[in-house]
Structure formats: structure tokens, C-alpha cells
């Protein structure tokens, strides 16, 4: 537990923090015209952290992981896996952002810096093994996110989204903090290991409340029912690149924290939280599916779709097995590709004046004028619906398999039956773009960066993605196993 190894294990976060601070100086002295440069540098920094983390994940020497900074931070396969996803999502979002804001006015260098700090916060969250570190990371992420949501200062919807996100997010942080204080009070420790040891001999009433409050706070962050109300509004109001970011990186981070807290910290009291997770999973699937049916705005629809998908991810958690945790990580990986691709595709829907198109009805028959974009959306939608042979099916495959292996057949059966409701609204979008008479409103987008991200995501969710299953599952298994250690 010496300084060198601590530095070595947490080097990505330290490096990103320093990069963020330096870039902040660049932005402060260089002004708005440095925005592009700062974005490129931020992407480079994230990429550096990504490569480093990938080494930590794959290097056999670090397979067991290690503690850093006197036991408040832990480097392990699980954290590294989640961080890689977070960095990838952040890079993807940053690549598509500048063009969007240059067209809609007001791109400023603060944007990539905020994303960078948000990514540091998320990395801290997933590596935290102490409630205080967790909260620090969470707030760093959340505060950056609030600002990002209202980044289009002149757009009322964006400002409203930021305010809503802030108020409700603060409430959730409060709930989480309250739960943490209860846990501390009843177990006498803020470290995960300490809490786990204390919970080993039984669960007091106060600690139960602590668990429930912590889970409620985290459920808010992942937008699981019944703490999902903010999602459609924020997703609709925030600028589309920000929405793409919200639906990917913070979701990965929050799900990862939920996994670590549930399976590691509360790992001895599985029964105490399993029912909550089962309820949240099924409710998210059903509410996400039913809520999406009436939507006319594609961003709101994708927001409900993300609620729906969180429900499927939670099914893996309900199983509370290594296979379930590994399944969740696989699902998250695929989900990041689907969600990022989906929002980038939405970003590319523009009318003749270059304005964003968000109404689903305006996308009618777009396959005639923009065949490639339309086919990408078509496959992304069916992949989100989990129809084989698209890769989105594999995510459902692994989590439901884990649930059945854990003998939760009723949960799996109800969950998968409810997924058919979800298929309906995805089909609705498919129908509008493929079958309807052309509305002629959508004009293509030729931005290379957008196409690059969209095509990469589309290739991943296409049947070609199945080639990835072996390495992906191997890494996810290794990552998941680090959550299931015996004390």
C-alpha cells in the first residue's frame, strides 16, 4: 500500500485530472477559439487513459487488483472494464460534439473540459471502495453533468433540462447521502469491506434503511423505475450530443457502482436487496416500454428506451451471480454502442435549413433519400429491441441466461415477455422510416466525424459483432470475478 503502487493504480485518473486543469488554463487564456484544439487534446487524454487502463485490465500481473490510497480506492478488473467503457463513450461523444455546436452556435472549450472532469468523477466512482470516495466521484460527475445539460445557454429547453436535472439530481444525492450516513451509523465504517464485515452477522433495521436509501439514490442515477421521471425531460431538453453522453458514460458508471455496492458491500445480505432490484427491473422494463409507445419525439422515445434497457441490465443484477454480473457488463458494452449510435443518428437528422429534426413523423420514408442513415437507424432500433441476429440480442441473451441459471425463471419469463411490448415501439420507428411515404424533410449529413462514430456503432451492433463475443465475455468474466471474492 505504498505511494508508488497507489500512484500506479490510479494513474489514469490523476493524468486526466491534470490534463483537465491544464486544458482549463489553455481555455482561460486562449478563449473560445481554442475549443477545437481543447477537444482534440481532451480526446487524446482520454485515449491515453484508455490505453493505460486496458493494460491494467489485460496484464496478468494485475489480475488480482490492488488497493490504493490507504484503502479508499481499488484497482481491479471490474473497475478497469467499466472505466474503459466510460472513456470510450466519452471519446465517442466528444468526437461528434464540435460540429453540432458550431452549427447551432456557441461551442466553447468548457465543454470538453466538463466531459473530462465528468469522466474523472465516473472513474473515481467505479473504483471507489469507500463511501466517501464514491460520493466525491459521484458529485464530480453530477455537477459536470448539470452544467452540460444546460450548455446551450440560449435554448430554453436546455436550460430547463439543466435545472430539472440539478434539482432532482441533488435530491437523489441527498437520498444517497442519507443512506450512507445510516450505513455508517449502523456499521461503524465507511469502507466497503468494513460494511461488508459488519453486515456479515445480520442486518439491523437501520442498516436495512441504509441499504434501501443507497439503492434508491443509485436507482435515480441509472434512471430505473420508480426514479426515472427526470429522464425523458432531460434527454429531450439537453443538446443531443449531451444526451448521447448522458445515456452512455454516466449510465455505465452508475450501473457499475450499483453492482459493486450490491454485490461487494451488501454481498452478504443478498436477500435484503434482491427484491428491490427485481421490482426495479420489471417495473423499468414495463414502464419504459409502455411510456415509449405514445412518444412522438425521437429523443424522448430513446429516453424511454434507455429506461427499458436499464430494466434488462438489472435482471443480471437480480441474479446476484458472477454470470449475472458478467452479463451486465456485456450488456452495458453493447448498450453503449447502441445508445451512442442511436443518438448520433438522431443528431444527423437535419432538415434543409440545417435544423435538427426530432419528430418521428418527419422521418417518414427517409430510406429513399438517405438509405444508409435509414438502414443504420433501422438496425439500431431492432438491436435495441433485441431481435437476433443483431448484436443487441446477445446482451439480453447473457442476462436472461444468468437469471435462469440462478433459478429465477419467473423473473426471466416475465421480463422477456414484456420485451415484446418494447418491440412494438421500435417497430413503429422502423415502420415510419422504411414503409411510409417520404416526407422529404430529412436532408443528409455529410459530417465525417458523425458518420465515423455511427458506422463504428452500427458495425458493432450488426451480426459482425458476434465475433466479439469471445474476447468480450472473457474480459467481462474476469471483471465480474473481481466482485466475488471471499473475505
Amino acid at each position, binding site marked *: 500500500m505504498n505511494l508508488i503502487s497507489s500512484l500506479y493504480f490510479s494513474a489514469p485518473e490523476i493524468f486526466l485530472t491534470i490534463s483537465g486543469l491544464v486544458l482549463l488554463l489553455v481555455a482561460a487564456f486562449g478563449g473560445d477559439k481554442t475549443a477545437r484544439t481543447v477537444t482534440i487534446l481532451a480526446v487524446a487524454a482520454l485515449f491515453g487513459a484508455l490505453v493505460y487502463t486496458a493494460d491494467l485490465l489485460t496484464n496478468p500481473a494485475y489480475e488480482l487488483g490492488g488497493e490504493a490510497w490507504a484503502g479508499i480506492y481499488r484497482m481491479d478488473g471490474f473497475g478497469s472494464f467499466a472505466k474503459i467503457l466510460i472513456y470510450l463513450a466519452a471519446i465517442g461523444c466528444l468526437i461528434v460534439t464540435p460540429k453540432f455546436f458550431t452549427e447551432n452556435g456557441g461551442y466553447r472549450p468548457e465543454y470538453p473540459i466538463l466531459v473530462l472532469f465528468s469522466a474523472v468523477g465516473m472513474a473515481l466512482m467505479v473504483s471507489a471502495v469507500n463511501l466517501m470516495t464514491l460520493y466525491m466521484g459521484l458529485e464530480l460527475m453530477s455537477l459536470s453533468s448539470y452544467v452540460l445539460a444546460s450548455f446551450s445557454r440560449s435554448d430554453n429547453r436546455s436550460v430547463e433540462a439543466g435545472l430539472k436535472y440539478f434539482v432532482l439530481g441533488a435530491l437523489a444525492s441527498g437520498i444517497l447521502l442519507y443512506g450512507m450516513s445510516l450505513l455508517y451509523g449502523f456499521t461503524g465504517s465507511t469502507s466497503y469491506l468494513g460494511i461488508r464485515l459488519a453486515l456479515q452477522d445480520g442486518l439491523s433495521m437501520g442498516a436495512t434503511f441504509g441499504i434501501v436509501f443507497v439503492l434508491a439514490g443509485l436507482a435515480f442515477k441509472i434512471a430505473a423505475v420508480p426514479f426515472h421521471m427526470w429522464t425523458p425531460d432531460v434527454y429531450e431538453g439537453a443538446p443531443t450530443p449531451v444526451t448521447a453522453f448522458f445515456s452512455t458514460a454516466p449510465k455505465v458508471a452508475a450501473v457499475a457502482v450499483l453492482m459493486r455496492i450490491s454485490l461487494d458491500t451488501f454481498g452478504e445480505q443478498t436477500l435484503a436487496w434482491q427484491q428491490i432490484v427485481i421490482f426495479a427491473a420489471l417495473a423499468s422494463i414495463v414502464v419504459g416500454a409502455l411510456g415509449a409507445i405514445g412518444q412522438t419525439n425521437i429523443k424522448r422515445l430513446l429516453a424511454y428506451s434507455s429506461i427499458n434497457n436499464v430494466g434488462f441490465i438489472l435482471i443480471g443484477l437480480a441474479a446476484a451471480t458472477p454470470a449475472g454480473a458478467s452479463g451486465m457488463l456485456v450488456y452495458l458494452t453493447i448498450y453503449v454502442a447502441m445508445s451512442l449510435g442511436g443518438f448520433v443518428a438522431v443528431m444527423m437528422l437535419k432538415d434543409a435549413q440545417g435544423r435538427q429534426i426530432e419528430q418521428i413523423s418527419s422521418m417518414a420514408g427517409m430510406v429513399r433519400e438517405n438509405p444508409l442513415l435509414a438502414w443504420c437507424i433501422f438496425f439500431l432500433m*431492432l438491436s435495441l429491441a433485441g*431481435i*437476433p*441476429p443483431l448484436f443487441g*440480442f446477445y446482451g439480453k*441473451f*447473457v442476462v*436472461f*441466461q444468468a437469471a*435462469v*441459471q440462478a433459478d429465477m*425463471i419467473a423473473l*426471466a*419469463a416475465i421480463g*422477456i*415477455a414484456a*420485451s*415484446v411490448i418494447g*418491440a*412494438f415501439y421500435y*417497430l413503429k420507428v*422502423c*415502420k415510419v422510416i*422504411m*414503409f411510409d411515404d417520404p416526407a422529404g424533410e430529412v436532408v443528409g449529413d455529410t459530417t465525417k466525424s458523425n458518420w465515423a462514430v455511427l458506422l463504428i456503432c452500427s458495425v458493432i451492433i450488426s451480426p459482425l459483432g*458476434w*465475433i466479439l*463475443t*469471445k474476447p*468480450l*465475455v*472473457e474480459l467481462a468474466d474476469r471483471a465480474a470475478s473481481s466482485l466475488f471474492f471471499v473475505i
Partner: protein
Amino acid sequence: MGGFPILSAMLLVPLVAGIACFFLEAQAARLTALTATLVNLALGIVLWANYDIGGAQWQFVEQAALFAGFNYALGIDGIALMLIMLSVFLMPICILASWEAISKRVGEYMAAFLIMEVLMIGVFAAQDLFLFYIFFEAGLIPMYLIIGVWGGDNRIYASYKFFLYTLLGSVLMLIAMFWMVNEAGTSDIPTLMQYDFPAGAQTWLWLAFFASFAVKMPMWPVHTWLPDAHVQAPTAGSVILAGVLLKLGGYGFIRFSLPMFPEASAQFAWLVFALSMIAVIYTSLVALVQHDMKKLIAYSSVAHMAIVTAGLFAFNVQGLEGAMMVMLGHGLVSGALFLCVGVIYDRLHTREIDRYGGLSINMPKYALFFMLFSMASVGLPGTSNFIGEFLALAGVYKVSTLVTLVLTTGIILGAAYMLYLYRRVAFGDQKNADAAAMTDLTPREWVMLAPIAAAVLWMGVYPESFLAPMRADIAALEARMARAAPAGDSMLEIGTPRESSANAMPALEHDNAGEGAH
């Protein structure tokens, strides 16, 4: 075959051509699609020619550990071979049927059909449970597009109904598959076919599989997606739907439900029989009053499929062989009937029966083909369906006289609606001038219909070619199910043979030797 991965090749050829079609102009896409399907037909013939009848149960086996959680494993037995042959045989005909009828978005259309072919061959060749599921479900996407983009007026509704109905049926099967794989520790289909699941679990597993296959089959009362899908789909879409996709349900029963859950199959045989009886009578009566030709044929498909399900659950060789033969025969005949409808639809753009009449006057060659296929659909001896229906009914008779009686009534009703259809379309007065002015078959249509006619007659006259590859597999299946086979009600007792033959003349009492003595 010297290790040449012929099954993979059969998947790869249409896949590559399908992707290419996406980017091609209309005419180039048509030619590419036709070439690819013909190449696949040739590969199919090579496959059949090299299939070793009486050899190993699973042939042309290929395995590659490509994916996590399941394997890329292909292999066929005689049953799968026959169904693959049916698919590759119908495919070029479908492409020809769409040659002129489809004029918009041709590249995408051909791509959808070729991908469909990949998935159908994949379903029949898959030897891994999950690989099977992926192929089985993936077929929804191209079919959804075929109905939704190139279908009739009410195509949107039909495409939704088709998609959601079949999806809802299938998802529970996936959960059952997870359970089975967890229990048996392998997703290898041949192993699972020998695995004895606990009888209590079989009930649930059987029901989950039944939900999926009954919808695909389709069985009454979950058949309602079929008439909609058939009527709205373009001609070639209907052909492939009736010809091959409906066989997925029957294939599912014969590959999964029967060998994997024999006890549960016996337990639920009454349910299948009851649904089959209702289906055969009800849908035949419904078919009798249809004004839309495609709808009529769609309902007749449901009736024929009911004979398949009844034959399958008869638990004996005749029933199983009959069910397979009905599936093959129906695949050809109903496909051909849809093509016949397509031929006149292309000319007059209506499927209304009353708009036609007296076509045998101006389209004699067409009327001849239509007659042949109508008779085959009725089950006239000498045509494919006779063999299948006769065997299936003989099999069912061993189990239940009542069921056989009802099913046979259905066949009589089948004759009624088919002959009634034929009379209204081909005979009688030429009611409408535009219908009377229609020209007879073009060479392209000859090329479509003649091979099917030949196959129908071949199957009817010499069914041994088709029964021989399946014989060993069906015998193995019967042996597997024997322990659960229900007792029949006909109880044919083998009596002691008479001392003399039945037509022997009684010995005369007095000697007639002195006949001339009078």
C-alpha cells in the same frame, strides 16, 4: 464430400449475394439474386446426391467454436435435408415470380429474399440450440420488410401482426432453452435429443416450445396472423411464407418437442388433436366463403398444417412420415397455388375471385397448371399431397378413430373449397372483358410452374425418393418416443388366419365327376 463445408457454403452464397444486391441496380440485382439461388440449388442437389442414406444420422457436420455461450455447429439428417431441398428449390422460383411484379427498391427486395434463404437453411442445418434460435427469430426481420415495403394496401397492419405475434410466441422458448442448457450442460441438439428431462419439467418446456411452434405452424386459434400476412405479402413473399416458413413450426415439433419431451408430448397429444380437429373443420369452412383467392389458400394452409400436427402426435412411423410428406407436398403445392394467383394478379391486379371466370377459355395452359395444383391440394392420388395425407391419416387412425373421422371430413371440405374456387375462376362464363383478354402463360411463368408440377407428380408417383432419406431418422424418432406412446383406440387385433382363403369356393357336397351322366 472430403470435408468441404458445403452447408456453410450454402449459407455464404446467398449472404454475399444479398449484401451485394443492396448496392446494385434493379436488373443487376435480379440477375445476381437468380444466379445466387441457382448456385444454391446446385449445391443443394450436390448435398442430396452425397447424402448417405442409411449412413450416420448426422452428416456434413461442421463445428467451430466461434462464439461465447454457444457453438457454430451445422449438420443435417434426412428430415433437415428434405426441408433444405424444399427451400433451395422454391427460392429461384420466388425470384422469378418477382421479376416484373416488383419494380420499386428491387435491390433491397432481392437482398431481403436472399437473407431469408440464409436464415431458412440455417434453421434446418443448425445443430446448436441457440444458433437455431437466432436463425429462427432472425427470419422476422426480412419477412417484416417484405410484407411492409412491398405488400398490399393493409401491409402495415399485417407486418406488425406478423412480427409481434411470432415474437411473442418465441421469447418464452428462449427461456425454456436456457433452462434446458443449464440442466443438460450442453446446447448441442443431437445430445439434447437423447437427454431425458424430468417429466415434471417437460410439461413446462413443452408448453414454452409449443407457444412458439404453434404460432409459426400456425395452429388454431393463433393462426390469425397468417391470412393477413399472406394477403398483404407480394406473391413471392406468400410462396416463401407458405412454402418454407410454415414448415419451421412442424420442423420444430419433430426436432425438439417430440424427441426431447416425449412424455409431455404424449400428455398433451389430446390438446394437439383437439386444436387440429377444430382447425381442419373451422378453417375449411372459412375458406369456403372467401372472396379473396389468397385468403382462401391461406386458410387451406392452416387446414393442411392441422393434418401435419395430428400426424406428428400420432407417435408412429406412418404419422410422422405422413406429416413430413404433407409438409413437403404442401410446401410445393401451396407455393404453386400462390404463384398461380400471382400470375393472374399481375395481369388484372385483383385477387377478387368474382372478377375472374372462364379463364380456361383464354388461358388454357394456365388453367391446366391451376387444375393440377388444385387437385394436388385436394390430395388426389398421383400427387404429392395424397401420399402425405394418406400416411398421416393412417397413422392417426392407429391412435384415434374419432380424430381420423374429423380430419377426413376436413379433406372432403378441402375438395369442396378448392373445386369451388377452380370452378369460379377457370370455368363458367367470361364475366369480365378485361379478364377474358388476359394472355396465357409467358415463358418465364412456364419456367416457374413446370418444375413445381414435375416435383408434385414425382412425389406423388414415386415418394420413395423422398421417404428414403428420412426413414432412418423417423424410425429413430419413433423408437425414442415409443416409451411414451399412447395406446390407440382402434385396437386392431391380429386374429388367427382362416384355414382357407376368403374367396375360396366351398367344397361341393357331391362329386360332380359324372357331369356328363345326365
